[in-house]
């Protein structure tokens, strides 16, 4: 190979590389969102993003991570808007000035699931009572243990039940993984776990309607899973696209979109209850 | 006569060890110069300096270049040449490609070079590097240098570990290069006979120093003092070499071949028990091209010696037992 040809080869490669970089930079009509894995798994955003693009001409791109990391991405100005479900952490976040315009838009709920034969007999109890019984009987409980919204909810319930030192208890295991992985561990080991309903519906479906784990505790107000959107603070992050974020928050809170959220189903079951449908 | 090289006050060291120490040496153009010496005498180092691949630690190696690219005028064939992992053709053409020759010219010259070293171009050009014998590989490596038609060709031990046929072809190719293009050839070897055959002049290196321009015999220590001024060295085969006036235990003696007298064993019984005397077997006769002298190579005490043949040559045909005798006052001592 002659020197000229080698040089041409290098130049071609470099131009492809930088061509791609500039293409990324030129993508301007993009709203970047950080959300939680469980939200992404419901498919709601896949359903909403094309609608938003049509209505506002803005492309919604989202990164699905744990709640803790989603908030961290917002702190570092790497995203423009957050869709999360950890109210107390969110309030602290806004109070510290990282986010603005926090708007609660919808909720779904958590359920406590466990083996069909329910060895600890918690069926129909309130969530706090159920946890107390599990601890008392030393029945196996599987926790996410990943600081996610679900994990935070679980910890707040334990706290309410007056059980704080369970971290090292041998009947309490932490997977540090996603919801489905955690449900699978619970199923394999015959334990109890707390899950969001959306993931459970999918799990139930994948088991062809005959899952080893069933819903035992549900319907309590404490189990509500409140979702809100937060814009990343424009004063802290001048680079963030605050205008787009504001438009998104207005759009998703509008009655028309809210009704759509209420009608959204997976596998024939409704998942979310909108807060501003009227 | 024009010079190709002049060396001035050259000292070359690897670490703390001085391997080459040449105060003054000139090499003339269009000559075939031999470098002879034991292993570790600095032959390869000298050739690398002459190839301008290394610079002496101190002193200067002047090369009187013809063009602006002196590097392209000199070609070195290292002691163990390495073939590139490609075809024989590409191995030979590599240097020409670097020098920017055209394709047709390269092809013609590669084919010529292969035939000079006695390899059939049609059969060998496409061979892979691993499908060659040791002698063939050596000849391909030589062809890769000859093809450059260098002004100076440096060959480091080209005949080590090759068969007799290859040795002959290499000799022919060297002579051809000198005769056709006036190439200055500098060739090192420990095969004295082969060198006498090929070279116009010979540089004798010993421990990094030039000890003569011929083929001096070297007698190493260790010496043991017997009585008074008389010293003894015992050769590997048990022969005792008595010598007066040795300057020290590790002294090294140099004896010019013309000062080394040789007698058939049968007639030389009177020399038995004399000092500076050793028995050996003639292994070969050769003519020094430069002087026309006939030199016999004699293996005595397990080491090679050279002695000038005077008188009747038939007495000293290879295989004959002879006695070598040196005069103590003709021995030059180095320490």
């Amino acid at each position, binding site marked *: 190979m002659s020197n000229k040809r080698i040089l041409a080869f290098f130049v071609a*490669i470099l131009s492809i590389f930088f061509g*791609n970089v500039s293409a990324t930079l030129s993508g301007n009509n993009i709203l970047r969102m950080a959300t939680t894995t469980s939200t992404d*798994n419901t498919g709601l955003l896949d359903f909403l993003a094309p609608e938003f693009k049509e209505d506002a001409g803005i492309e919604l791109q989202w990164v699905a991570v744990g709640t803790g990391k989603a908030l961290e991405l917002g702190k570092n100005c790497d995203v423009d808007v957050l869709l999360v479900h950890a109210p107390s952490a969110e309030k602290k976040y806004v109070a510290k000035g990282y986010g603005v315009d926090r708007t609660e838009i919808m909720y779904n709920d958590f359920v406590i699931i466990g083996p069909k034969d329910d060895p600890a007999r918690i069926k129909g109890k309130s969530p706090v009572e159920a946890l107390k019984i599990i601890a008392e009987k030393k029945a196996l409980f599987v926790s996410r243990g990943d600081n996610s919204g679900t994990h935070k909810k679980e910890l707040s319930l334990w706290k309410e039940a007056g059980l704080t030192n369970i971290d090292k208890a041998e009947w309490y295991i932490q997977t540090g993984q996603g919801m*489905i992985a955690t449900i699978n561990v619970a199923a394999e080991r015959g334990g109890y776990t707390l899950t969001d309903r959306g993931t459970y519906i*999918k799990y139930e479906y994948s088991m062809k309607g005959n899952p080893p784990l069933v819903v035992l505790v549900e319907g309590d107000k404490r189990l509500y899973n409140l979702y809100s959107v937060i814009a990343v603070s424009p004063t802290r992050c001048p680079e963030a696209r605050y205008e787009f974020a504001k438009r998104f928050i207005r759009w998703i809170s509008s009655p028309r979109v809210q009704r759509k959220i209420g009608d959204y189903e997976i596998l024939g079951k409704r998942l979310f209850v909108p807060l501003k449908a009227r | 006569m024009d010079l190709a090289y002049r060396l001035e006050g050259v000292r070359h060291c690897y670490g703390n060890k001085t391997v080459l120490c040449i105060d003054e040496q000139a090499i003339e153009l269009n000559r075939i110069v031999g470098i002879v010496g034991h292993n570790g005498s600095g032959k390869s180092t000298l050739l690398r300096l002459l190839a301008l691949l290394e610079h002496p630690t101190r002193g200067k190696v002047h090369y009187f270049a013809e063009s602006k690219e002196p590097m392209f005028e000199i*070609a070195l064939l*290292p002691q163990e040449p390495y073939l590139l992992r490609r075809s024989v053709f590409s191995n030979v053409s590599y240097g020409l490609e*670097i020098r920017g020759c055209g394709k047709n010219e390269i092809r013609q010259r590669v084919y010529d070079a292969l035939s000079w070293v006695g390899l059939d171009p049609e059969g060998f050009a496409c061979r892979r590097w691993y499908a060659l014998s040791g002698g063939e590989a050596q000849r391909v490596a030589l062809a890769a*240098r000859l093809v450059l038609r260098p002004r100076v060709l440096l060959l480091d031990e080209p005949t080590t570990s090759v068969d007799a046929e290859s040795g002959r072809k290499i000799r022919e190719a060297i002579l051809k290069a000198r005769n056709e293009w006036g190439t200055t050839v500098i060739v090192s070897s420990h095969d004295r006979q082969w060198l006498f055959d090929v070279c116009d002049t010979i540089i004798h290196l010993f421990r990094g120093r030039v000890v003569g321009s011929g083929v001096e015999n070297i007698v190493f220590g260790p010496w043991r003092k017997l009585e008074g001024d008389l010293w003894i060295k015992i050769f590997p085969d048990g022969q005792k070499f008595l010598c007066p006036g040795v300057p020290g235990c590790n002294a090294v003696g140099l004896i010019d071949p013309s000062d080394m007298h040789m007698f058939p064993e049968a007639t030389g019984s009177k020399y038995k028990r004399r000092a500076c005397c050793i028995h050996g077997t003639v292994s070969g006769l050769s003519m020094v091209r430069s002087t026309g002298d006939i030199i016999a190579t004699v293996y005595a005490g397990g080491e090679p010696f050279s002695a000038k043949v005077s008188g009747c040559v038939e007495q000293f045909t290879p295989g004959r037992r002879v006695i070598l005798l040196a005069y103590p006052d003709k021995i030059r001592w180095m320490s």
Partner: protein
Amino acid sequence: MNYILEGLRQAVMLLVKWDPETYAAIRATLTVTSYSMCASLLLGIPAGFALGYFDFRGKRVLRTMVDTCLAFPTVLIGLLVYAFLSRRGPLGSLNLLFSLSAIAIGQTILALPIIMSLTATAVESLDRRLRLTLLSLGARGHKLLFTTLWEARHALLIAAITAYGRVLTEVGISMMVGGNIKWHTRTITTAIALETGKGNFGLGIALGIVLMLIALIVNLSVMSLRKKS
């Protein structure tokens, strides 16, 4: 076993039915690994050559450092690249986070020590007579470099294949700095992680099979290249 058969079936379906999401992930994977391989080969081969060929002060320390970097966890690389590319980070103004370029940068950092270390080893294990031979034929500078590398071509191919295997299969960097954004930065590996997280084990295995197919095709083409020279 059920999952594996199911995965095989789905893999065929995904490819045959021209599933757009799968092909987007394949495209992202191929694009990003091509960038990172080009960059790491362009940087790593000369650097590895220098490391293996020249003697200099601190060479052994440097070599040890490079070899240690072979154990760089992808998640840590992801975190470091994130720290630099975040809008709050020193390179935030480039706006590269959550793009294929960001993944390519991280993967280059992943592949670079592999290429450097294996190139250095390849150059070191070349015959020591090679250098003298090339110099004696008049080779200098880049000619010397290219011929030396060409002599080590088989070992370099192995280095490239090893690095490609690592780059193709990593998930930590793609997830962290790519963000697994659908249609944009979702690579096959992050898609596998996502589908597994969603409980679609069959789909996860299917995507894994697709990934292995890509690896197979790349290795086959490299092998044919090797035979030719």
